[in-house]
């Protein structure tokens, strides 16, 4: 493998084109001279290549007795810019006929009129097709053996809006959108530093999706960056649409319920993680970016932890760990205690539970499964359903299923409490994809609680921890910094220490430069004498 690894995919592409070019050149050589790019042949060849697709359009014009043809995909270009561009070439004052005799003059002219906008000289059919797909207009002029591609891709994108799945009360309110260039600018605006680097990859043999790998040079660990690059390069699939696709293709292990990359739609989260030494993977066409490497404790961190007082931040973080346990364990403990360990409940509670379950026809495990699955159905319905009927589900769900079932004596009241607390606790997770772990493991736990009691619950937990300890995210142990235990990193795990105290970047990311806070004196009253301190 050549040492110029970084852009293997990018480098490879031109090579392919050249190959093809050579082939066609050979054919052309037989017929004509060395050019396949003429105003007579190119348009028809390109249109044929697109199979006469409905949205491939051509504008013809004759300026000073020279044929000018403009080719573009109507669906990919911006109509206003199209009008402007065509007018520059086809209007009566167009200079084309006057003096643009060769490509050098054309490009000099273009430099003048397009200024910053991206344009490109193309010299083959395949190149022109590539440019047209990416939203350019390709202009061919008679007597000039190269064509001009001007990118006027349409800006069909929604504006930057508030995040929908990762909201905060205090903190930035912008979220990524589907356009990758906007997303990059949202990050770049937060980190104005030349060391913030983005590498471009084109992934998806057929979709040709743009993917950016971003990192902060000098903070992110070089070995991990290289690892991410290698994994991105290895991807050979037909289509990529969402960060979830990439996540599954580059994760260390896919047979796990726990996400090994953190997905976020918040540019501030990305920026903060970049400054910790992590990498971000942006995919064109989705507002969700991937942050790697991601460890277990990262999924309990919300950006708000750092925007609020560290007391509240720490408290909320512990609440999140607690709710993870609640979401994971409540139903199975309920089943275990009610079928095996009656002695664990205080007498009065036991008696009240017995009184409530008097006349319930199902065993506890059936009751729990029925309610949990009902809830999952309601939840899925709530997500998929058209917004207009959204309220119906909450009414039907809460009233009919909950209250009526309890009143009809099919399930007990305490079951409704269990299902609700489980559901609510499950939503506490700041990263939605992490909640799937507790959501699915719950059923396994219920099953084991039903046949083995709390002993079974413990067995599953032991297996879960063993599994977690075996996981790695891009080489970083998933349970770090808890196992392996790193004492310095504990300042930002279960609690968040004040900023002036967190001097170093987390050790488990193996950052190239550890120092984070340079002047580390805690805030203290001014030592100035006098004043109004009587």
């Amino acid at each position, binding site marked *: 493998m050549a040492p110029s690894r970084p852009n293997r995919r990018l480098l490879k592409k031109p090579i392919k084109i050249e190959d093809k070019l050579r082939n066609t050149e050979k054919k052309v050589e037989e017929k004509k001279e060395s050019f396949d790019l003429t105003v007579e042949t190119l348009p028809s060849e390109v249109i044929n290549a697109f199979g006469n697709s409905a949205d491939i359009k051509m504008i013809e014009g004759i300026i000073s007795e020279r044929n000018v043809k403009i080719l573009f995909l109507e669906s990919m270009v911006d109509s206003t810019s199209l009008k402007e561009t065509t007018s520059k070439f086809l209007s009566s004052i167009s200079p084309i006929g006057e003096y643009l005799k060769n490509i050098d003059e054309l490009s000099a002219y273009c430099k003048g009129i397009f200024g910053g906008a991206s344009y490109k000289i193309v010299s083959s059919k395949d190149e022109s097709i590539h440019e047209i797909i990416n939203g350019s207009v390709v202009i061919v002029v008679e007597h000039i053996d190269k064509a001009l591609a001007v990118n006027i891709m349409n800006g069909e994108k929604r504006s930057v809006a508030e995040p929908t799945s990762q909201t905060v009360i205090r903190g930035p309110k912008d979220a990524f959108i589907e356009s990758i260039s906007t997303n990059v600018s949202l990050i770049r605006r937060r980190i104005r530093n030349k060391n913030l680097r983005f590498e471009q990859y084109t992934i998806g043999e057929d979709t040709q999706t743009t993917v950016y790998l971003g990192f902060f040079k000098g903070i992110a660990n070089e070995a991990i960056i290289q690892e991410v690059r290698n994994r991105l390069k290895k991807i050979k699939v037909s289509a990529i649409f969402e960060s979830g696709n990439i996540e599954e293709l580059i994760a260390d292990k896919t047979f796990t319920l726990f996400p090994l990359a953190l997905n976020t739609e918040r540019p501030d989260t990305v920026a903060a993680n970049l400054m910790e030494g992590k990498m971000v993977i942006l995919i064109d066409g989705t507002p969700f970016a991937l942050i790697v490497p991601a460890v277990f404790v990262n999924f309990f961190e919300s950006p708000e932890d750092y925007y609020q007082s560290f007391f509240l931040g720490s408290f909320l973080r512990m609440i999140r760990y607690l709710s993870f346990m609640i979401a994971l364990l409540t139903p199975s403990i309920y089943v275990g205690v009610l079928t095996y360990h009656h002695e664990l409940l205080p*007498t009065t509670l036991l008696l009240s*539970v017995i009184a*409530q379950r008097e006349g319930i026809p199902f065993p506890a495990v059936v009751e729990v499964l029925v309610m949990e699955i009902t809830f999952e159905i309601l939840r899925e319905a709530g997500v998929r359903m058209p917004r207009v009927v959204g309220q119906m589900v909450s009414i039907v769900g809460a009233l009919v299923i909950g209250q009526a079932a309890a009143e009809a004596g099919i399930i007990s009241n305490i079951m409704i409490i269990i299902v609700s607390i489980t559901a609510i606790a499950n939503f506490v997770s700041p990263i939605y994809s992490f909640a799937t772990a507790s959501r699915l493991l719950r059923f396994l736990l219920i099953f084991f609680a039903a046949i083995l009691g709390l002993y079974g619950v413990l067995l599953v937990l032991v297996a879960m921890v063993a599994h977690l300890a075996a996981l790695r995210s891009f080489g970083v142990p998933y349970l770090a910094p808890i196992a392996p235990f790193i004492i310095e990193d504990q300042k930002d795990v279960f609690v968040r220490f004040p900023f002036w105290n967190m001097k170093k970047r987390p050790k488990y990311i193996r950052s190239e430069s550890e120092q984070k806070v340079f002047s580390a004196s805690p805030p203290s009253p001014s030592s100035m004498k006098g004043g109004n301190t009587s």
Partner: protein
Amino acid sequence: MRLKSVVIVIAIVTLLTGCWDHREISEITVVVGMAVDKGDDDKFTLTIEGINAKELSDKTASGFAPSVVFSLKGDTLAELSQKMNIGISKNLIFSHMKVLVIGESVLREGILDFIDFLERNREIRDDFNIVTARHVKAADILKVTFLVQKSSSLKLHTQLNSFVESWGGDPDIRLNDFIQAYTSAGKRGVLAALTINGDPKKGGSVDNMKKGAPDAMVVVDSMAILKKDKLLDFLPLKDTRNYLWLINKLEKTVVTVECSKNKFLGVRIFNTVTKSKGSLVKGRAIINLKIRAEAYLDSTQCKDDDLTQIKTFKKFGKLTDKQIKKDLETTIKKLQQNYEADIFGFGEILFRQDYNNFKRIEKQWDEYFKEAIVNVDVNVKIRRSGIRTKSPFSEKK
């Protein structure tokens, strides 16, 4: 291959253990109380109180009996406890047992035969009160309903705990305490004794539960003292408190102290500590007990004494010391001379503090206890006088 077999073995060992003790909560009856009486021909009569949980919850209660009381006769409790389905519909669980009532007649003959079952059984825990029934059958104690907790056992459990906290009227004996007292050379066991005020027959009806002044009520009557596992005698309630005081288990109490002729003080004792030292000197056991307590004045009938003066508090404190000392010494003397039963564990103090000498006389400890010199030193500090200094009636001038 080896890994595979290890995994299979682990899977079998861990996964095939399940279900054997599976009991659905709707298929069980919780036993909250147990009573043991003498059987007619057989050794025991076991009575259990199984809760009807529906009646204990306000939402589901419909005014029926809160519990089922059922008796069986037989020779071992182990068999009887599993044979209860002769009459009772659901499986019984014993882990929430609150009270064990031992009949007087059984107690006279010795209770060791069934204590073993209670200790050995995997369900029964060591957190129920052991009491004895005086004058009445133990089974009847479980039948008397009550307005608040409804079930007799639940009521007794709450009642005994409250009594310990407020006044010190229950020796608070659990299974462990009994076994310790039985196995120790220097200690005798005690039990709280209960009886029924009123008609036991009427007490079992649901109507009894509806009355503010019930036809029958279970009351704490006295304290039973044991010799090994057999009943010796009953002592009045006041001795229970003195007993708790001497073994440093008293939490709070009130003592009534005469401050002048036929006028009394009510002194609420809290924060009391009893330190005990013991040794054998010239063949005689000497026990020194040092009681330090704090108190506040809860009532006074001697309104002439000026409570704004420190010396009044000191005077009252001295009077209280004297009264307590007298009470405690009476109790000790009674046990030394009438029963030769060291319920206070003085022998254990010697066992810890003068081991070599005690070891020699261990077998004859009862006689040595009779002759033991017990010095009680009481010092009560009265800290406050409630939320009032002067008596409201002394201000009329």
